């Protein structure tokens, strides 16, 4: 085998992809949050609905929040029909996104294994596989030998504390290069004349009665026909200034990477029970995540004992990781809902739309969110795929309880 340089297939770092404009006094639509969801929403508003007099305002730098902090996993193997619809729509869009944006996203459909460590988990996994298939989503249940075949470095022996009894397998799942996803959308938006305004924090809203007509920012007031929130963990902070209470709690979610290694890990492996998820980035880092830290926080960091637990689980499942060095750890702020499903739709305020509560799993939904949220904003009513995710489900009780398929402890 010819030795290959890790990262040799990465494209050059771009030096210019979008303008850095000052905000104009007014736009048809202002999107709050310049991460993946905000950018994708703006993109489909422009492409599908012809709206280009638009700004995406970002308090820091473009895609520097959770978009820069996630573990880049993409999959659609959710249990409930509502979630399956939304995430599978996103996955289908992912499959054409590189061509559409004409930009390399390093979208790699290397598959995902969701491990089962108990008889109950095996049964739940088989049930989820069946549900996935009924929704046209590729899924199968594998026994430990088949799991080992797909991921040879995984320890499937039966003498560990939580042996691998099997796994669900979604071959079309994978990873993408998160920064390039943001940059691809940003470049397309810039070319369509959309303003991407950085270092511009929204501090309040302009309203006339129950209608939102603009935002107050650290770079002046901006009037807007419509305002859409896509601010992830900080949505409560924004909504509080309107007296709008949302059923979300902001928590730290930590991730870490190893030093660069030769390719050792061919797929994505996730485990709910021992709680770790791992893939290997194109450049060679092992990318590991776990669940949220228990307490509310906006500090973009978490506690070390969470990392310690996650590493213990990882080393038991992947004994060779014991010799890898951690290069870097970091935290994002994720907003979690009581039913582990997102909130996307209208608000009690006319002209204000909310997209939040994605918890630990927003990245995979990026293009699907953009598509559906753009429809919601353009037509003042939810797209059929995001209608079940409206705010009123917390009153009607029609919750979408995805704690299992969300694959995370929250």
């Amino acid at each position: 085998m010819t030795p290959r340089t890790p990262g040799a297939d990465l494209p050059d770092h771009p030096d210019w992809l979008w303008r850095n404009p000052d905000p104009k006094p007014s736009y048809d639509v202002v999107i709050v949050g310049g991460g993946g969801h905000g950018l994708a929403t703006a993109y489909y508003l422009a492409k599908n609905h012809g709206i280009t007099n638009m700004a995406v305002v970002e308090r820091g730098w473009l895609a520097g929040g959770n978009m820069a902090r996630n573990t880049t996993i993409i999959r659609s193997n959710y249990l409930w029909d509502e979630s399956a619809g939304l995430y599978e729509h996103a996955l289908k869009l992912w499959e054409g996104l590189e061509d559409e944006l004409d930009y390399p996203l390093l979208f790699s459909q290397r598959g995902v294994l969701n491990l089962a460590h108990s008889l109950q988990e095996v049964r739940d996994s088989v049930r989820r596989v069946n549900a996935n298939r009924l929704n046209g989503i590729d899924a199968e249940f594998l026994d430990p030998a088949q799991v080992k075949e797909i991921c040879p470095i995984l320890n499937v022996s039966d003498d560990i504390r939580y042996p691998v009894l099997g796994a669900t397998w979604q071959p079309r799942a994978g990873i993408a290069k998160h920064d390039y996803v943001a940059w691809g959308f940003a470049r397309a938006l810039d070319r369509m004349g959309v303003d991407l305004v950085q270092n511009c924090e929204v501090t309040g809203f302009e309203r006339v009665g129950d209608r939102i007509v603009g935002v107050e920012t650290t770079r002046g007031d901006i009037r807007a026909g419509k305002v859409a929130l896509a601010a992830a963990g900080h949505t409560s902070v924004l909504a509080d200034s309107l007296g709008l209470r949302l059923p979300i709690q902001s928590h730290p979610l930590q991730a870490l990477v190893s030093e660069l290694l030769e390719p050792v890990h061919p797929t994505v492996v996730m485990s709910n029970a021992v709680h770790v998820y791992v893939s290997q980035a194109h450049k060679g880092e092992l990318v590991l995540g776990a669940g949220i830290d228990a307490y509310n926080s906006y500090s973009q960091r978490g506690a070390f004992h969470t990392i310690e637990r996650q590493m213990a689980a990882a080393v038991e499942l992947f004994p060779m990781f014991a010799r890898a060095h951690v290069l870097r750890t970091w935290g994002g702020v994720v907003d979690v809902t009581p039913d582990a499903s997102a909130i996307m739709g209208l608000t009690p305020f006319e002209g204000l739309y909310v997209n939040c509560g994605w918890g630990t799993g927003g990245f995979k939904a990026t293009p699907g969110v953009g598509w559906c949220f753009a429809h919601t904003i353009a037509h003042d009513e939810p797209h059929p795929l995001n209608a079940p995710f409206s705010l009123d489900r917390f009153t009607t009780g029609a919750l979408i309880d995805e704690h299992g398929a969300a694959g995370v402890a929250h």
Partner: protein
Amino acid sequence: MMLIPCPWCGPRDESEFHYGGQADVRYPENPGTVSDEEWGRFLFYRDNPKGVFAERWVHAAGCRRWFNVERDTLTNEIRPAHDATTRTVTR
């Protein structure tokens, strides 16, 4: 890792505790008259401030008692609530 002031045991590592969320969330006094909207609010809605938050912890690996603290959710600065040991939550 945070050092959390247990009113009975003193400051201990965070890993000895479990988190209980917002402090002083009261069960509705007259459940029979509570509307769907109010039930939803009670069950699913909690404060989520960026700043000082009154919250509950239980010293699970110590005295196993619940208490309240006030913590800044941005800086993790933490201090006992003035009535840390007396305020209770009906569940």
